[in-house]
C-alpha cells in the first residue's frame, strides 16, 4: 500500500473522527453530571440538521452562521426536556436508570414524529462547503475539516468552562460526587438542567454542521445515537479527552476497514467496536464509567 493512499485514508479517518467526536461530545456532557444516558441524542442532532438545511435553502443562512442559533435552540430544548421529563425520576438508582431510559426513548419517538410532521420524510442536506482542499495528492473535504476543527474547539471550550468558570467547577463537582456536591450547597437540580442544556446545545450545534456532510431525514436519528454511544463507550463516559481519542480510533477504523474490507464492514465497525469495548473494557479507555 503506497504512502499516498495510506495518508489519504488516515486523513479521511481523522476527519471522520472529528465528525464522530462532534456527535458524541453532547452525550458526554449530559452523562457526566446526571448519569442519564439520553437516547434522544441522535434525534436532537437530526432535528438541528433539518432546521439548518431549511434555513439555508429558504433564507441562505449558512450552517456555520446557524451554529449559535442551533446551540441556543438545542440548549432551550435540553432544559425544557430536563425540567418536564426528568425531574420525576424514582429515587432508587436502578429504577431511575430504567425510567430515564424509557423517558428518553419516548422523547426520541416524539421528536421523530415532530420532525416528520414539520419536515416530512424528505432527505435534506445543505450544499455548502462541498468541495475539497488539495494538499498535493491528498484531498481534504472542507465540510469535514470544519467539523474536525469545531469538535476540537468545542471540546476545548468545554474543558475550559469546566475548569475555569464557577458553573463549570460546580458541574464537575456534581459529576464526581453528587452527594458531596449537594453537601457543599450546590443546587443539584440546576446543575442537571445546565448539563442537559449544554449537552443538547452541543448536539444541536453538531447537527447544524452535519447538514453539510450527511443527507438526513427524521428517521436518521437512531443511527447517530448509536454512533455517539460507540464513541463514548470507546473513549469512556465522562472523559472529553477519551471522547476525542475514541472518535479518532473509530474514524480510522471505519476508513481503513471500508477500504481493505468492504463498505459493509466499514459501516458495521462502530457497532462491532462498541460491543467489543463494552464487554472487555467496561469503563472505556480513559473514562470513569457508571458505578
Amino acid at each position, binding site marked *: 500500500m503506497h504512502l499516498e*493512499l495510506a495518508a*489519504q*485514508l488516515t486523513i*479521511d479517518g481523522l476527519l*471522520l473522527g472529528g465528525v464522530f467526536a462532534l456527535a458524541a461530545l453532547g452525550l458526554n456532557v449530559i452523562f457526566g453530571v446526571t448519569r442519564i444516558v439520553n437516547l434522544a441524542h441522535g434525534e436532537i442532532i437530526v432535528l438541528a440538521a433539518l432546521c439548518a438545511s431549511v434555513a439555508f*435553502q429558504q433564507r441562505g443562512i449558512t450552517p456555520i452562521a446557524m451554529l449559535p442559533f442551533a446551540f441556543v435552540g438545542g440548549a432551550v430544548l435540553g432544559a425544557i426536556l430536563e425540567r418536564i421529563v426528568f425531574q420525576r425520576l424514582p429515587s432508587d438508582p436502578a429504577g431511575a436508570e430504567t425510567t430515564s431510559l424509557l423517558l428518553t426513548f419516548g422523547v426520541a419517538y416524539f421528536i421523530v414524529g415532530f420532525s*416528520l410532521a414539520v419536515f*416530512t*420524510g*424528505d*432527505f435534506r*442536506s445543505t*450544499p455548502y462547503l*462541498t*468541495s*475539497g482542499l*488539495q494538499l498535493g495528492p491528498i*484531498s*481534504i*473535504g*472542507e*465540510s*469535514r475539516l470544519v467539523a474536525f476543527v469545531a469538535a476540537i474547539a468545542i471540546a476545548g471550550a468545554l474543558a475550559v468552562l469546566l475548569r475555569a468558570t464557577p458553573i463549570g467547577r460546580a458541574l464537575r463537582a456534581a459529576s464526581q460526587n453528587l452527594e458531596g456536591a449537594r453537601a457543599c450547597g450546590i443546587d443539584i437540580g440546576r446543575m442537571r438542567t445546565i448539563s442537559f442544556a449544554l449537552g443538547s446545545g452541543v448536539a444541536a450545534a453538531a447537527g447544524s454542521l452535519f447538514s453539510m*456532510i*450527511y*443527507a438526513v*431525514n427524521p*428517521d*436518521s436519528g437512531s*443511527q447517530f445515537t448509536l*454512533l455517539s454511544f460507540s464513541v463514548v463507550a470507546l473513549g469512556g463516559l465522562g472523559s472529553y479527552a477519551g471522547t476525542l481519542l475514541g472518535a479518532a480510533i473509530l474514524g480510522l477504523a*471505519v*476508513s481503513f*476497514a*471500508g*477500504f481493505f474490507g*468492504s*463498505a*459493509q464492514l*466499514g*459501516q*458495521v465497525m462502530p457497532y462491532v467496536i462498541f460491543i467489543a469495548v463494552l464487554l472487555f473494557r467496561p469503563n472505556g479507555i480513559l473514562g470513569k464509567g457508571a458505578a
Partner: protein
Amino acid sequence: MSHTFFSRALAAALACATLGLVVPGRTFAADQSPIVIGATISQTGSYAVDAKYALEGYQLWIKEQNAKGGLLGRKIELKTYDDASDPATAVSLYERLIDQDHVDFIVGPYSSAITAAVANVAEKHKMPMISPEVSAAAPFSRGLHYIFMGISQSTHYVEGAIAIAKANGYKRVAITGEDSAFPRSIAGALPDITKAAGLEVVYSELYPHNASDYSAVVAKIKESNADALLSISYFPDAIGMLRALKQANVAPKLVYFAVGPTELNFGKEAGKDADGVLATTNWSANLKTPNNAEFASDFSTTYGTPADYHAAANYASLEVLGAAILHAKALDQEKVRDFMANTKMRTVLGNYEVDPATGLQLGYTSLTLQWQGGKQYIVAPAAMAERKAIVPFADWSKR
C-alpha cells in the same frame, strides 16, 4: 380484584371483533355511484422520499377523466392510505380497501417488498393490479395472474449510459450502488451487459443502506482508475457519493447515478456539481407520446411543480386501467385483467405491452438524461434525445 377493568377489556375485544361481521355492505344503485380506485402510498418511512408524486399522478388522471364525464357515465374517486413503507401495514390496508371500503379497482403500491406482499391480496380477491413503481422483475415472475408491471424493467436502466461509455472508448468501468433490492436487480445484470459491450469491470462493490461514509468507496474507485462510474443510487446516497467524489477530487470521465439525480431537487442540492451527471428516467415532458404535453403542463399548473417519472408512471397506469374499463364496458375484474394482460397501447410513458404469462413490461423503455447547466436533458436513446451527452465529466477544478 376489580371486575370492571376486565369486563371492559372483554367488551372492547368483542366489539372490535364483530366490526367485520355486521358493517353493512355499501349498497349502491347500479350506475350513478362513483367508481372507486384504491391504493396505498408510502408517505412516511424509508420509501417516502421516492414515492413523492405518486399520489398527484393518480389525482391528475382522475381529475382529467372526470372532466371528460368519468367512465361508463360514472364519476371516478380515489381512496388511498399511507402504508408507512411497511409490508404488513400495506397488506392490511389493501384488505381494508377491498373488504371495508369496497373499492372497485386497485393500483399497486411503491417498492418491490410491499408489492410482493400485496400481490397475494390481489390474487386472493382476483383483482388486477398494475404496479407503476416496481421495475425489478422478481415480484412478477412467480405464477401470479393479477399483477402487471407499469414501468420499464430495471435491467434496461443502464443501457443508455453503457452505450455512451462504449461510444467514447471508456473501457474501465466501476460498479457500485446501494445494497438493497432495486439496485441489486440492476447490478446483478451489469457484468453481462458490460462484457457484451466490450467494457472491463475494474471495481464492483455495493455500499450499505443509509451508509454514513462514502470516502472509502471513492478511494477504491480512485485506485481502480476507472473511466466510467455506474452507481445505482437513490437520492440521498447519490448526493453523498457526488460530494465524496468532489472532496476526494475524483472525476471519472463518465458519472451515472441511476435514479437519484432524476429527482428535480438533485439539481437544487448539488448545484453546479450536478452538471455532467447521467441518470435514468422513464419519462420526459418532451416525449412524443399521446397527450404527453397536456399531461406535463396540466401537472405543473395544478401542483406548481413539474411532473417526475413517478407521477407519469402512476398517471399512465390509470390510463391503462381506464382503457380496460371502457373496453370491458363494466366493472368486470376478469375482462379488465385480460385487457391489461394482452393489450398493446400508447400512454404518456410510451408503448404499454406486458408478457401475458408473467406480467413483465416489454413495451416501455427507459431514457438516459444528463444534467447540463442546471437542467435535465434526455441524451439517449438517440430517437428521443434532446441534446448530445457532454462527456467527459468536467474536472472539479474547472467548474
